[in-house]
């Protein structure tokens, strides 16, 4: 399994995402924002950080990078794509996922260990979890509040497109406690919390996040 991990100027969690891929016995392939091809990878991770400083809006500048045009095309053809935190914001700006992420309702950056409920275990990235399972992974973001209009929210709810929900107090004002969503096909997933920081209890709160990368392995092998 070859998984591309994109680095934009200002990307921070690319090394973590690459490590998570290796933990799942995959091969991590670094992709540069200026690349015009995806080097034959089976899936792509758009990792967290502050691409272009998160100036203007989080993800607004990164989504125009050459490599993103390739990602958009591949995603539309069904390639598994995961956006974590800033990566989720980039996928939303690129319209691969609906809605937008806005400033946390309490206006502070929040870094904490966050319980999530797995709502949908049929996406390319979540088959290893039981539906309804609760996992503990880090959340660290200043603009993680998920916003969308009523129609979009209804569409997400009705079609089981909410992948993760925050458990307990809503950390950032997200509508419907949404932590992560998927596209209609289930190959593109975006979430604000960081499963790649929870792959080893030595450096993370748990290893609960590893399941996402192992799920990918399953879906790539199956495909």
């Amino acid at each position, binding site marked *: 399994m070859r998984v591309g991990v994109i680095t934009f100027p200002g990307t921070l969690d690319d090394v973590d995402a690459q490590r998570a891929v290796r933990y799942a016995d995959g091969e991590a392939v670094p992709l540069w924002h200026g690349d015009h091809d995806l080097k034959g990878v089976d899936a792509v991770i758009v990792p967290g950080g502050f691409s272009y400083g998160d100036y203007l809006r989080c993800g607004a500048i990164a989504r125009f990078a050459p490599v993103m045009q390739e990602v958009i095309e591949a995603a539309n053809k069904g390639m598994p794509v995961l956006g974590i935190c800033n990566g989720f914001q980039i996928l939303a700006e690129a319209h691969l996922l609906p809605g937008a992420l806005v400033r946390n309702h309490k206006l502070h950056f929040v870094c904490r260990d966050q319980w999530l409920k797995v709502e949908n275990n049929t996406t390319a990235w979540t088959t290893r979890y039981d539906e309804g399972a609760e996992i503990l992974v880090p959340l660290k973001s200043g603009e993680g509040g998920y916003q*969308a209009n009523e129609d979009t929210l209804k569409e997400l709810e009705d079609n089981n497109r909410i992948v993760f929900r925050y458990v307990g107090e809503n950390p950032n004002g997200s509508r419907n406690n949404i932590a992560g969503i998927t596209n209609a096909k289930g190959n593109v997933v975006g979430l604000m919390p960081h499963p790649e920081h929870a792959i080893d209890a030595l450096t993370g709160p748990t290893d609960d996040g590893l399941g996402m990368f192992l799920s990918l392995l399953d879906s790539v092998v199956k495909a």
Partner: protein
Amino acid sequence: MARVVVDVMPKPEILDPQGQAVANALPRLGFDGITAVRQGKHFELEVADDVDDATLAKIAETFLANPVIEDWTVRRVEA
């Protein structure tokens, strides 16, 4: 050279935590009579004379604002 101003505001139905924080703080600071505050972005662009209105509209819509959550206005001002 022309000067162009683009104002970008959160859509009315979208939560605006920043504006709300301002509105809540004002009475505490002793300022009464401000019933609502919304906070957005204000851009000032120096623009070559051959950049037309359609291009400016496109820049605002595709880049400076996110139409999913924001409204925007574009206007040319005296330099």
